[in-house]
């Protein structure tokens, strides 16, 4: 009996000790399965190896699967879970999670690393809720060989002018991609579509991701923004039914109906777009910056990698615009170790940590002088920082608590218009009515 009691007490002591250690550590719920996870593992290891970090403040990582990540996170946070001290957050969902999180003071040096505009991607109601770890925006990918051939051939230029006159109502001349307007891009997409120009060396001029999915609206909406579109004006009125939104919606429909994009584009998202462009049968693609590594890698995209050009999204009547949103890390309101969590986030916002995160595969948006320090290893981050600084935007209201449902609503209504199930007027009227309900103060 005495032996049994000793064993039981020893086991209890062991369990209590290990539980205590687990409680004391800072648990970070990160974005799983990609470069973000690799980079987070590297910085967590570096942080834990520092001599000044107490055992109780060492970082442990926790990952869900990506599928339904935000649904699971929302359910956990709403239930008051304390299973993690730090959790992932994104610009478009920050308003949704802010009430379950603690604002964090990143210190004065954070602005010198990321810049104020990037720090704002992690702010809600004027408060900082997280460290911006990764930034996403869009690149216009194009086939250099095809565009060069077009620019060098007078007969092709004449055909290009003829096509643009017929479909866009004005005879355009081919231009270099870095000076494209959206009309130039559309004319190029039509020129390289077999359905429009049977002589085209590829099947499609572009690949539009038009699946009923909020992320696809983020890709498309730069067309509207470049023409002056926004969700709401300074007084809080919904301004979705504007000439800018009409122009942008009509442009996509025109290209899809003309066959400039694959027939199944209404079911395309990120992966399908990469597969289409990587097949060598598509001339241009507006796609997330994350695709650059895949599309320019000869092992992953042998048909196009050597000929992929990258420029910022084309310009509209109001200039050039590139949707940005950040992923970041912030503190759970029910965290067991808030001081430890704050210490880790403050360290993560330092230049050394940001550079380590970048070297380990992450995509932080860094100020030019900071990005210059890793320009040789990560030239894409220099481009990322340049585009984010020069063209980056967040729609007014797109960090509110209901930003997510607004994107969902737009995705449903706009894909309804593109697929011919409802008129443009109905789609915009329904979207406006829904947004007024969702974004009312």
């Amino acid at each position: 009996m005495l032996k049994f009691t000793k064993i039981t007490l020893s086991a209890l002591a062991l369990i209590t000790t290990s539980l205590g250690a687990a409680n004391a550590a800072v648990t970070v719920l990160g974005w799983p399965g990609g470069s973000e996870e690799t980079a987070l593992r590297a910085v967590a290891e570096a942080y834990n190896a520092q001599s000044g970090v107490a055992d109780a403040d060492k970082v442990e990582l926790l990952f869900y699967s990506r599928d339904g990540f935000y649904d699971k996170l929302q359910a956990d946070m709403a239930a008051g879970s304390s299973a993690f001290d730090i959790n992932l957050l994104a610009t478009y969902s920050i308003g949704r999670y802010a009430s379950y999180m603690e604002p964090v003071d990143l210190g004065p040096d954070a602005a010198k690393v990321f810049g104020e505009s990037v720090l704002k991607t992690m702010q809600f109601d004027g408060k900082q809720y997280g460290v911006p770890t990764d930034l996403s925006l869009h690149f216009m990918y194009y086939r250099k060989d095809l565009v060069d051939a077009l620019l060098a051939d007078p007969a092709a230029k004449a055909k290009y002018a003829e096509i643009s006159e017929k479909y866009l109502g004005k005879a355009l001349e081919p231009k270099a991609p870095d000076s494209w307007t959206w009309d130039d891009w559309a004319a190029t997409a039509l020129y390289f579509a077999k359905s429009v120009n049977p002589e085209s060396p590829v099947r499609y001029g572009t690949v539009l991701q038009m699946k009923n999915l909020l992320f696809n609206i983020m890709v498309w909406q730069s067309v509207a923004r470049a023409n002056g579109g926004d969700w709401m004006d300074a007084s809080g009125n919904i301004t979705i039914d504007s000439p800018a939104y009409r122009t942008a919606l009509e442009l996509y429909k025109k290209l899809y109906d003309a066959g400039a994009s694959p027939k199944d584009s209404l079911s395309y998202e990120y992966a399908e777009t990469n597969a289409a462009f990587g097949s060598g049968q598509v001339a241009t693609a507006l796609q997330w910056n994350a695709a650059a590594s895949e599309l320019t890698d000869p092992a992953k995209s042998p048909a196009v990698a050597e000929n992929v050009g990258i420029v910022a999204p084309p310009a509209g009547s109001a200039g050039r615009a590139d949707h940005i949103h950040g992923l970041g890390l912030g503190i759970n309101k029910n965290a067991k170790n808030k001081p430890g969590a704050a210490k880790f986030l403050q360290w993560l916002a330092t230049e050394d940590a940001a550079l380590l995160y970048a070297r380990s595969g992450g995509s932080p948006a860094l100020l030019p002088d900071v990005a210059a320090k890793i320009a040789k290893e990560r030239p894409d981050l220099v481009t990322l920082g340049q585009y984010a600084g020069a063209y980056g935007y967040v729609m007014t209201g797109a960090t509110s608590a209901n930003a997510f449902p607004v994107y969902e609503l737009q995705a449903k209504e706009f894909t309804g218009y593109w697929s011919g199930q409802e008129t443009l007027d109905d789609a915009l009227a329904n979207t406006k009515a829904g947004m007024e309900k969702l974004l009312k103060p």
Partner: protein
Amino acid sequence: MVDLDHKGWRIFASPLVGFLLLFLGLPILIDLVYSLSRVSFTNLRSPEIVGFGNYGEVLGDGQFWRASWFSLRFGVITAILECVLGLGLAVFLSPLIEKRSWLMAPLMLPLMVAPAMIGLMYRLVLHEFVGPVPYYLYLWFGDSPSFLNAENAFWTLVVVETLQWTPFALLLFYTAYRAIPDDVREASAIDGASARQILTAIELPLMRPTLIFTFFIRFIDGFRVFDNVYTLTGSGPGGSTTSLPIYIYEAFFKQGAIGKAIAASVILFLASFVGLYALTWLSRRGKGAAS
């Protein structure tokens, strides 16, 4: 046989009743409260009772009725196709399977794949640039249709669902078909019945309970379809492939409209209950008339 009195039954049944009350009764009660409340993820613990507004919102939402129609149509069409194909295969393949029973194993393989995986698989299979189906269509005919646009997505999904679940119907029908005593067939053959007459007048009537049971199982599964549709087309362009479970899921998680989502699920529950009760009543009435 132990003869239990009333008190004995109560004692033995109480754990089960307690379990049901805790794990079914309590959530249903909370659901009913939420369905009458204005509630989102921010006020889960303090819902504001607003009466039947959520029910009115659901019933007045055109998308709810479109989703109901999608689910009903999808459930009926896939159940009919699966039963017809499953029955045909069961009768046609019966002599072969009887001799080589291992054939049943590969025929059942589609059932082993998770529906969500089936959706992902067909995203690849039907993709114009990496999928084998469009590849061969281009190779042989110079073109490939759009499988997943608003016009064709419904029928593509019907085919995907039917291909996966026909083996289920085949399994049940084959079992029922083999359970018919051979001497019944032999006797009718001696009486001069043709193969078609044996099938329609002897075998199918004897298999009727299995046919009805399988049809309803497949209808219920088709009606509540979620996984493969969601991974293949999402809710479709303009919400064109929104089934009722997808409607409820999107209202709950994507729109954060918890009261509305639960009101829709309560309506679905009541409609299912009324439907099943009516079917049971009709079935009993049919039996009464026959006797």
